[in-house]
């Protein structure tokens, strides 16, 4: 009886929170911090601070702020499968939309934990992973109706920064302080590993059969064997790298702090000079006509890649 009451109370409090804390639609929403951008080829969605969800249905020409986001917390990442969108963020928040970002509901929130989720990945409409601070590892098999709350490794508490899918079975997670995790069985089991560089890796990409990790102070590691061995690539920048995209014309672009934009090609990195003073870039997305959508601390911008 008490338990039911408690659950009811919790439910109420989540609802009350949701009611008060609806993200505010503001004039300059495009000029705030954005942390991730994804597309399902119809809509482009970017998420960021204050529960901002920006949606473009015309390849990034115009943007609209979603008015039905039930949180004002900083959203750090999103994942899209067709019209289903999941976004995660601080206060261990997970929100979901089934209509390409127009309407949202809260799937998971735990304010008391005082921990952010840092990435989310759905491999189909039911199976998904949300990872975050101190080894937080949430999984679902029903599209997020129920989340299984656990740790990626029972005795480690590193921040988990990024999760990527290599193929049907292989998954890779980069973490804090030179740590990483890989799974050969679609996330059932995770193997903890130590990278040759002791700093944090913020992102990873799978490009032309290579696993590419990038992170603190411009460090980039490349593996041809799913992490058994790594090669450190000489980096032209000292700026931390946060995001990457495999473009339509088959290039790998990596972006990061202080407007860093790099191209990776054949185990080498080259700086691409684009006109900007946007500050830190957090993520990048390729759209048609060789154009890139950059998100970061100055908001959202679209640039032509030569």
């Amino acid at each position, binding site marked *: 009886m008490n338990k039911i009451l408690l659950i009811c109370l919790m439910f109420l409090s989540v609802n009350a929170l949701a009611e008060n804390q609806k993200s*505010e639609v*503001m*004039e*300059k929403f495009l*000029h*705030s*911090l954005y*942390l991730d951008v994804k597309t399902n080829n119809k809509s482009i969605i970017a998420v960021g*601070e*204050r529960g901002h969800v920006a949606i473009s249905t015309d390849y990034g020409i115009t943007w609209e702020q979603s008015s039905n986001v039930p949180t*004002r*917390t*900083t959203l*750090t*990442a999103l994942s899209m499968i067709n019209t289903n969108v999941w976004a995660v963020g*601080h*206060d261990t928040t997970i929100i979901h939309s089934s209509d390409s970002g127009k309407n949202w509901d809260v799937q998971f929130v735990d*304010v008391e934990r*005082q921990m*952010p989720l*840092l990435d989310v990945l759905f491999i189909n409409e039911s199976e998904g992973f949300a990872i975050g601070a101190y080894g937080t590892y949430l999984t679902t098999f029903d599209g997020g109706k129920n989340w299984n709350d656990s740790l990626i490794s029972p005795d480690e508490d590193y*921040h988990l*920064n990024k999760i990527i899918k290599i193929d049907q079975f292989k998954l890779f997670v980069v973490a*804090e302080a030179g740590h990483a995790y890989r799974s050969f069985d679609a996330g059932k089991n995770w193997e903890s590993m130590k990278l040759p560089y*002791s*700093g*944090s890796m*913020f992102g990873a990409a799978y490009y032309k059969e290579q696993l590419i990790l990038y992170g*603190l*102070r411009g460090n980039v590691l490349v593996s041809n064997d799913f992490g058994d061995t790594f090669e450190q690539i000489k980096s032209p920048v000292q700026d*931390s790298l*946060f995001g990457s995209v495999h473009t339509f014309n088959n290039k790998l672009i990596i972006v990061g*702090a*202080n407007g860093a934009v790099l191209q990776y090609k054949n185990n080498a990195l080259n700086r691409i000079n684009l006109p900007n*003073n946007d500050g*830190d870039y*957090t993520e990048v997305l390729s759209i048609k006509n060789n154009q890139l959508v950059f998100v*970061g*601390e100055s908001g959202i911008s679209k640039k032509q890649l030569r």
Partner: protein
Amino acid sequence: MSNKNSSMVNFLQNLIFNNKKIILFIILLITVGMLYFASQLRVDAGFKKQLPLQHEYMKTFMDYETEFGGANRLLIAVMTKEGDMFNPSFFKTLEAVTDDVFAIKGVSPASVTSIFTPNVRFVEVVEDGFAGGNVIPSDFQASPEMFEVVRGNIVKAGVVGRLVAENFNGAMVWAELLEEDPVSHKKINYQDVADQLENIRLKHEQGNEQVLHVIGFAKIVGDISNGAKSVVYFFGLALFITAILLYLYSGNIKLTIYPLICSVVAVIWQLGTLKILGFGIDPMNILTPFLIFAIGVSHGVQMISTWTDEISTHKHGKWDGEKAAKFTFAVLLAPGIIALLSDTIGFATIYFIDIRIIQELAITATIGVALIIITNLILLPILLSTINTSNLGDFCERCKLKKDKDSKFWRAIAGFIKNPLASIAVLVLIGLFGFGYIKSQEMQIGDSQTGVPELRPDAQYNVDAKTISSQFSLGVDMISVIAESSANACTESYKAMSNIDRFAWHMENIPGVQKVITLSQYAKVITSGWNEGNPKWRALSRNNYVMRQSLSSIETDTGLLNKDCSTMPIMIFTEDHKASTINNVVAAVNKYRVDNPPKMDANLTKLVSAIYAFDDSDLASIKVLVQAARLLSENPAEKYSQIVNFTDGMDINNSEDIKTLNDEVNTYKLNNPHKLTQLDELAEGEVRFRLATGNVGVMAATNDVVKKAQMPMLIMVYAAIVVLCLLTFRTLLGTLAIVIPLALVSFLAYALMAFMGIGLKVNTLPVVALGVGIGVDYGIYIFSKMQEFLKQGRSLYDAYYDTLRLTGKAVFFTAVTLAVGVGTWMFSDLQFQADMGVLLAFMFVLNMLGALLILPALAFWLMPKYRNPS
């Protein structure tokens, strides 16, 4: 005029003319003395003088002036002539300029900020934590590699756009000026500071590849004072023009010189009195002496005009200067006093605007006009009486000839006192009222232009300001909202910080806002820094430990928080300081406050007021304090815990206990200085947003005061005039005929301001009152003369025609002379003088037209019984 009045006039007449020599001697003595004092008068500018200190915003300003600085900032930008700043010569210059700014007397040393000062640091994330240091490394030696390092540090320190230009083609030195020395309480000399700034500019521009741009209140004062010096030339020019016109008008050298002497004497007395009263002359008020001179001349002309008329009509058998002077004195005493009194009262009403500088203007002007009563109504008749009329035969012959000749011009003007012109004039009056009213609604309160409107748009200062705001992302216009919360709110209250952060974001969304800076943004960036610079951690943490760690490195000298971190300003940088921009920001702040009202803690409020009311000799106050403290005994905040804990077990009948309590109270008071505005105590985590400091905050308050003062001021001026006119002329309709044209001119003046883009502000508000004050003279003199003729039983038309021949002529002449005089200000270096010149010239001419054309038309309609001779 009643008999009682005339016996009074007779008495004064005898008193004055029988003791001519003594009076002249006394006046001479006073003038010499006043000349001495006037020569001691110094220019006295001040920043606080321009603040409406009783306004809500300015109370906030004063409450936090010592903690966050006021709005008295200096900015010196060093820009390269070409190329970027990374060359040895630029760095040498910037360092030298920084050192020179430290050396300026009055600059708060802790506030000096440039990339060379230690309060600007950069932080970068490395594998094992943070690295940081001064932007210019201690082993700085000019070399391409070192410049690369410095460039990187500048970016990491986050000062691009603030201390370093967006394109790296220049850098700035900031400093805060303290108006009063904190130890000696001596006021700084703005002119000195401005001179030092100008020297820095000269010294470092000389033969260098850099250009300096200097802005700040001190520089404005300096530039305005320098510009104001040209007022001497304008004064000279006006004197010269007036003399020539007076000679053409009077045709006699003595009649030209005497009114000028009287007016100059009034000015000397006025300046001397100011010095004796301990005032200086503010550059903003430097035109007041000129106004006094103008009013003096205007009354003087009436006097010589009447005197000449008297002489030439042979009324007294012989051409006797003394008799004529006595007569003139008797005739003009009443209207003269009434006119000058209404001027005086008009100026005095300005005093009710609660801004020191305007009050000084009110005092200056009131004293000046009051003195004219002496110099013009006593000195001038005496001087006139000394004119030896025996050599004036030719002169008077000419006058008489002129007088007897019928004037087509004045006949035409007199046509306004009968139909059809009277009806047309009334229709035009109604039309102009409508037009004036509609157009005057467009008049802006405050500045309607960018830059400093006191100076010309192309003045050095405005060019400097424009360069700085185009090269740096942060302009010079800032309004700072002060967020008050509970002690240590920045680390202990997520609720308070997220409220402040949300407020800042709301402000950033207001049109016209360039950038908002507040502590919560730094907290977010540093929290991300502690997480290896990952932007995904750029959020406020609910974890108090994380917040303490993040904010531990932020010192109070950043101006982002106070000592116990209960108060955090939100600095809102605006694109400009136009009234519309200010109104947008203020409206948005007010809306946010209404939508998010802070909750108060009634018990805390009770306790704090009990602490301040505490008196260890008064048992009742002790009881109140103890009771209030016991309400909080559960879990008192740190700030109050000493007092609360002590009262818990104390015995209020024990004198030792009371002594200890008194000590606790005093300790509390020492640690929590009493604010000017003691507001209710906030509940935990609540935030109160208070408007406002920063230069735009000051303007917001000033605009508010000016807006609110405008109507009451005009009502008082008009009420005074109406009462005086009623008392003198004893006719309501006649009073209306005098006042209605004045009101029209007031509206038209506002319309002109709207048309010319002159905003109603501290400088221009008095012009309207002054204009009314001077304008009423014309009406009073004309009506007074006309009433005299009407009482002799003449028809309106005849009475008016004769009035015009005598008084009308003088009024016409005076208005033209004064308009030409103030018109010369259009060439002043100072925009506000040029604006005032145009406005005053406009008011002189229109008031004259109103008195000559509309007053008779109104008289025709309002006083029909006088249309035919009785």
